[in-house]
């Protein structure tokens, strides 16, 4: 049962020696043994290493070294896209078969420095390309609320593991919604920080100018704790902002008087599920009753976001994924010459969605097409960013649904990539603009009972506002305390 607590709660109990880090981790491992055969959130798990970290955490606490280690003994799982020294780094792809990372990602170093027990490799869409975790080369992950449904993606394993109490928190990555969308569909809190606030060193790149690492937690406060541990300037990432680690704990208090929240007109679209709409409308009324002023705002270039995203993200991906060639590591299928080796290795190693995006990205960068696609997309991207910056002159944050619908059935959209791409319609613009966004639970559909997510978007470095709004809402509701039925 220690595994079901929030980080804040467990940290307090660890501090009072009501429980040891080893016992807390063991509770997580027991829970994994109990449910993961059906849930399939974890791709692999180094129990010995995890237990050794927990024992080390207990030893440090016994020596009185817990002061500057706010996450001491807290079990945190990692998406299979983050490098941990000595552990497999696979991106849920066959092409990285057998690859063991020789180095730690910056976020992993930071989590370890904060005392966390960093364990497990959780499932994802291959190379973070997808919205359902069905694109994993190692089987799909179930949604803890209904195992026949998808957990969202690409960080579906992270969301499912947190929602199913297999860990206290997990890290994921968000390129077009890959944290917020699965958080919404699994009923947990997910944060995509401002671009550059968290170092990308050690995050396997999908689309470098869009990717950000962020936490999945079971409370808003927990997300702030993890963000504090993993954020801050990193000299190894040239796109990292010259900002220290951000501590949002102080912002988490009080009501919302004086806060202006915007409802983007363009997000009121056809095809949004009525139950999602009414849950979000109710959440907006709740925010208003907490003192926030609600305004309508306009983000006029919203309709171009999905197309823009799929040009920029695939262009960057086509280069980022070129290194998987069989020469130095991972899968290699020999050929008579390098070209044949590349073709065979990549042909066998990548799944269909990854291939689709590499081909798309290669196409939009091709001579003769570059101006019409890539260059134009960059211009639209600037317009989308300006839309947001203009909106944030009027309001402190924006409120939207995280997804147009609740979790859909596995297999429902696999054959329709365009339908799948539209799952991220509310989350994509945030990445294009480089701003921050958070999703938290705001209700459930009736039959079946599935979580609905509320998205709050803030300006660059506006995380404090996000946490203030999200926390006030969370304290006034009980959605986050609901547990999924999986046993």
């Amino acid at each position, binding site marked *: 049962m220690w595994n079901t607590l929030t980080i804040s709660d467990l940290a307090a109990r660890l501090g009072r020696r009501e429980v040891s880090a080893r016992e807390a981790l063991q509770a997580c491992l027991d829970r994994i043994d109990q449910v993961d055969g059906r849930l399939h959130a974890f791709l692999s798990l180094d129990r010995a290493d995890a237990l050794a970290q927990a024992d080390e955490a207990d030893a440090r606490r016994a020596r009185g070294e817990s002061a500057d280690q706010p996450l001491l003994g807290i079990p945190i799982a990692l998406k299979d896209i983050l490098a941990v020294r000595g552990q497999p780094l696979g991106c849920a792809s066959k092409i990285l078969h057998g690859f063991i990372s020789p180095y730690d990602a910056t976020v992993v170093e930071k989590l370890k420095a904060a005392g966390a027990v960093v364990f497990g490799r959780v499932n994802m869409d291959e190379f973070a390309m997808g919205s359902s975790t069905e694109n994993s080369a190692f089987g799909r992950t179930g949604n803890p609320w209904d195992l026949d449904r998808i957990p969202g993606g690409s960080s579906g394993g992270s969301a499912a593991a947190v929602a199913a109490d297999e860990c206290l928190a997990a890290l994921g990555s968000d390129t077009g919604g890959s944290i917020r969308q699965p958080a919404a569909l699994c009923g947990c809190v997910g944060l995509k920080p401002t671009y550059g606030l968290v170092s990308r060193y050690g995050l396997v*790149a999908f689309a470098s100018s869009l990717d950000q690492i962020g936490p999945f937690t079971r409370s808003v406060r927990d997300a702030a704790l993890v963000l504090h541990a993993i954020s801050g300037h990193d000299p190894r990432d040239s796109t990292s902002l010259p900002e220290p680690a951000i501590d949002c704990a102080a912002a988490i208090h009080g009501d919302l008087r004086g806060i202006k929240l915007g409802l983007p007109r363009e997000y009121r679209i056809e095809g949004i599920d009525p139950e999602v709409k009414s849950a979000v409308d109710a959440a907006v009324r709740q925010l208003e009753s907490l003192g926030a002023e609600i305004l309508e705002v306009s983000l006029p270039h919203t309709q171009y976001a999905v197309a823009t995203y799929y040009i920029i993200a695939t262009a960057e991906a086509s280069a980022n994924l*070129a290194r998987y060639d069989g020469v130095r590591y991972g899968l290699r299928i020999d050929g008579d010459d390098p070209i044949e080796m590349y073709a065979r290795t990549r042909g066998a190693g990548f799944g269909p969605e990854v291939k689709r995006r590499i081909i798309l990205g290669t196409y939009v960068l091709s001579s003769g097409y*570059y101006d019409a696609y890539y260059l134009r997309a960059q211009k639209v991207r600037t317009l989308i960013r300006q839309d947001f910056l203009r909106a944030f002159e009027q309001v402190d944050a924006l409120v939207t649904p995280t997804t147009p619908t609740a979790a859909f059935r596995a297999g429902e959209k696999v054959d329709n990539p365009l339908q799948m791409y539209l799952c991220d319609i509310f989350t994509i613009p945030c990445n294009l603009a480089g701003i921050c966004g958070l999703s938290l639970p705001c209700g459930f559909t009736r039959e079946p009972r599935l979580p609905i997510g509320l998205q709050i978007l803030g300006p660059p470095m506006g995380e404090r506002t996000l946490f203030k709004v999200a926390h006030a809402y969370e304290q006034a509701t009980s959605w986050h305390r609901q547990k999924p039925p999986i046993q």
Partner: protein
Amino acid sequence: MEYEVVIGLETHVQLRTRSKMWCGCANEFGAPPNANVCPVCLGLPGVLPVANEEALRLTVLTGFLLHCAVPELAKFDRKNYFYPDMPKNYQITQYDRPSTANGWVEFETGGGRARVRIARAHLEEDVGKNFHYDRYSGVDFNRAGVPLLEIVTEPDLRSAEMVYDYLNALKDILRQGGISDCDMEKGMVRCDVNVSIRPAGASELGRKVEIKNMNSFSGVRKALEYEYARQVEVLCGGGQLAQETRRWDDAAEITESMRTKEQAHDYRYFPEPDLMPFAPTDAWLGEVQARVIELPLARKERLMRQYGLPAADAETLAGDAALGAFFEGIAPRAKQPRILANWVINNLRARLAETSTSIQAVKFPPAAMLELLELVDTGRISGRIAQEVFAEMFATGDAPEHIVARKGLVQVSDAAALEPLCDAAIAAHPRTVADYRAGKTAALNFLKGQVMKLSHGKANPNLVGEMLQRKLQ
């Protein structure tokens, strides 16, 4: 028909930095295969590049030395192509916003001077090196990620000889400027040439052929000579030239087709999202500006003008920065800088080379050279003795005065002392004396040599000459 050749050059130069372009690995030649590698330069999943600031400085410094403009903003791009020596299968380079552009190099060629315009000099990363064995191949990534400067000329070069002279002038500038060691044998300089021919006097350019794979400046010269002849032959034979890339075969001394325009790569350049654009501040540029040196050609001219040195000596001193600095440190105090230059080049430089000593390790203070010349000038020692004194100075660092005194090397100008020696030489060589008297004036030199020998080199040679002449009249 007369044909004119039009040549443009792309010269790749490895920068002299301690570490590689994007990581902390050593930029060093000759380490065991894959000794200088890390996750970043191996292109492992999840790594990011961080630009080496010294490489950025050296690029802008090159711009200053080549009279280029430094734009307000430079950025990096990805150049996509697959090759086993390329860890990421894209090369980080500068496509449309190079660090520096639009300059020129002035150099001596064909007995005159020429100026070649520099289109741009941009920064990129080197690739690894493939090795082929019986049944497999290996890649050494030590070189992967070494900072590489690509210096691109306009098509201003008009002969193989001119290209050769340009390359040597460029090498001197880059070496002296501390940009690169330019060691050809270590592959620090590589160049590709673009060559076309056109009827003499025509203004339109002919079909451009790119030649790759030359690994020495003389290889470049040979490849161009071959290619010019080949192209003229094709056109004179009524044929057409293809726009293509050709490879120089150094052993066979021919070029052969690699790929035609239709097979050209589409590199799909796009801005590198992992690096921020670089906008140098005035302070930063000022620091780089402070490292600008006097160019070798300018220095040569100044040495000729300021010290009256012959062109060859001035060129030698201008071409060797350390030797030049040694000379210039004392030349203003020299009575005859030309003679000092002669000594620095013919004695000091020779000795340094013989003993493999660096000029910093010379034992005597530079001013001792002036003291030595002063001893000759005032007739205290002969030029020949001076050689001996210099050798001793070089070996021990002792002051020339001390050496002369210690070894009793003061020149003998005393007639009373020289007279018996002259008489002895005359007496010992009657036939030579007879030859002289018969009109063979050269015979006097032999006798003079004998007297010098008898005096152990200390006799004043002018005095001996006069004395012998008088005695034999």
